């Protein structure tokens, strides 16, 4: 159980500054997910916390203690790697036990812990196998067991599910959530997959180009994006952005799932023609041709292609972004302007 904080952390390779002035608080016992496109610095951040990557400047604190110069093995951190990184020449049991021996934990205690962990992850019958003789899912479990058995302060995971097939991934997500509940340890999880992030995190850190864009709960991130980047990162299809029609380079955004396929009272109504239709099952995704460009809509209303209609977006479902792409408040004044520009009801 511990909190982590990064203070003014900088990471540079020679003259290449990868991360500059990063400040991050990870709450004790939270399930924090670092998410962002590849190359955004999320893995580097994770690795700096583990100590696998040195920091160029700033401080990293675990439980309020500065750990900049503490070796990775002494930070009380466990990590599950993307490719599992099992020791291929050791049996499952030896893999799990290796770290405990290095920590000089007595034999009985080791046996007890291994037994417990293996029961939790369901590895008991595979203890004497070599990693090469295990399936992908089983290897994943060994990696988890190896990390859990150390009873670490912090549990790190770097894209641990990306090597599993879709079905297994879904199951493992649920298991990881349960595991976090049971252990109560701080989890730090890195992924590029927004669905993974939204479904597991209780705190999401969205990163881009070495900077933190937004840190909040999944619900907050979805309902209250603080910039276009966040708004478009979460949700599929992406949030619609209408640019170039409002004064001061103000941009109007709304999510496809908030598009109503009929006129609305307290919002704007835009004439459009259905260009394409993607049937997903319960929902249908339309691309609508309008005078403001293509607008995506996601709804359960079924309409044929080429239908001409007026779709509506309510004021409550709109986001406004300034010229710098960051969120600006939805004032009554702006509402009036929108109503005039897009022909809505006041």
């Amino acid at each position: 159980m511990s909190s982590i904080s990064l203070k003014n952390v900088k990471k540079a390779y020679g003259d290449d500054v990868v991360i500059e002035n990063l400040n991050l608080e990870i709450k004790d016992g939270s399930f924090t997910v670092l998410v962002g496109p590849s190359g955004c610095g999320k893995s580097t951040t994770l690795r700096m916390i583990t100590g696998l990557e040195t920091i160029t400047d700033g401080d990293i604190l675990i439980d309020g203690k500065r750990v900049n110069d503490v070796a990775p093995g002494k930070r009380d951190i466990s990590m599950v790697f993307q490719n599992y990184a099992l020791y291929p020449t050791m049996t499952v049991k030896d893999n799990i036990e290796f770290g405990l021996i290095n920590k000089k934990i007595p034999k009985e205690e080791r046996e007890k812990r291994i037994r417990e962990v293996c029961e939790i992850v369901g590895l008991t019958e595979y203890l004497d196998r070599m990693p090469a003789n295990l399936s992908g899912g089983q290897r994943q479990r060994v990696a988890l067991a190896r990390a859990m058995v150390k009873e670490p302060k912090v549990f790190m995971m770097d894209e641990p599910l990306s090597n599993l097939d879709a079905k297994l991934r879904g199951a493992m997500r649920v298991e990881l959530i349960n595991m976090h509940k049971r252990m109560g340890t701080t989890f730090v999880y890195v992924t590029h997959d927004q669905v993974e992030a939204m479904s597991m995190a209780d705190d999401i850190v969205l990163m881009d180009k070495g900077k933190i864009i937004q840190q909040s709960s999944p619900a907050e991130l979805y309902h209250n994006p603080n910039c276009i980047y966040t708004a478009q990162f979460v949700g599929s299809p992406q949030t619609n952005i209408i640019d170039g029609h409002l004064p001061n380079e103000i941009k109007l955004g709304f999510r496809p799932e908030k598009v109503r396929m009929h006129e609305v009272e307290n919002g704007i109504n835009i004439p459009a023609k259905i260009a394409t239709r993607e049937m997903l099952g319960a929902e249908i995704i339309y691309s609508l041709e309008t005078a403001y460009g293509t607008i995506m809509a996601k709804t359960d209303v079924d309409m044929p292609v080429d239908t001409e209609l007026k779709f509506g977006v309510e004021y409550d479902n709109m986001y406004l972004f300034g010229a710098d792409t960051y969120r600006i408040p939805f004032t009554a004044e702006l509402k009036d302007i929108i109503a005039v520009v897009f022909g809505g009801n006041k």
Partner: protein
Amino acid sequence: MYSQNKTLEKVKTFADAFFKILFILVIAFPFFWMISTAFQTLKETMRVPLTLWPEKLQWGNFAEVFKTIPVDTYLKNSLIVCTSVVLLQYLIIVPCAYSLAKYDYKAKPLVFGLVLLGQMIPMQLTFLPVYFMFNKAGLINSYASLILPFISNPFGIFMLRQYFMQVPSEIIEAARLDNASDLKIMFKIMMPMVKSALVTIGLLSFISNWNNYFWALIMTNNDLVRTLPIGITLLKDSETLARWNVIMAGNLLLVLPMLGLYIIASKKIRNAFVYSGIK
């Protein structure tokens, strides 16, 4: 038409088999001749027509070898030198290869260049200066002079480096997080992962050191440290009468361990040589 082709095929296959067997016999014949001679009486070796196989196996020829030269000393020396080289080299080449594969430091290209240079420059080129060096240090006629130049085996470093580079860095990182020291990672995690390369390197260096005549000739002139290849040439030179049966018996003592090794691990040895040839 078809059946005619089939008969032709059969004849061709038969001819091919015939020539291949003949070929094998020709290749193997010198070995057969060595073994046969080693068991003949002196008379049989000089008799016309030839003695293809002795009437009675003359095991006494081997006793003659022991009487003529101190084979047991030579054998012991050969074993000491070969085993020392094989074992000690791991202490030198494993850390160096690991450092070249997985550590980052400025002079690394220079170190790697040194390894390549070591592979390029043959001992036949450096023996004189090394002789002077050992001479100055009083190490002529010592095991050290026969062992030291071979334990930094540059080919071994090169091969191990290739193998280490293929180990994902994450495994090392996982071990770091498990609080394992550099040495522990190297010995407990990395070395078991390149076991096959270690065996290959060990085999190759055992074979080349067992067979090494040149270096022992340069560095020794005393029976106390001389190795078996030198012993066999001394056996030949001491035979003014050329008792070829005794010489071949001695020769067999030098050959048999290699043949035995080859019989046990023929595929492994051949693959090792192919790797060393086209790396």
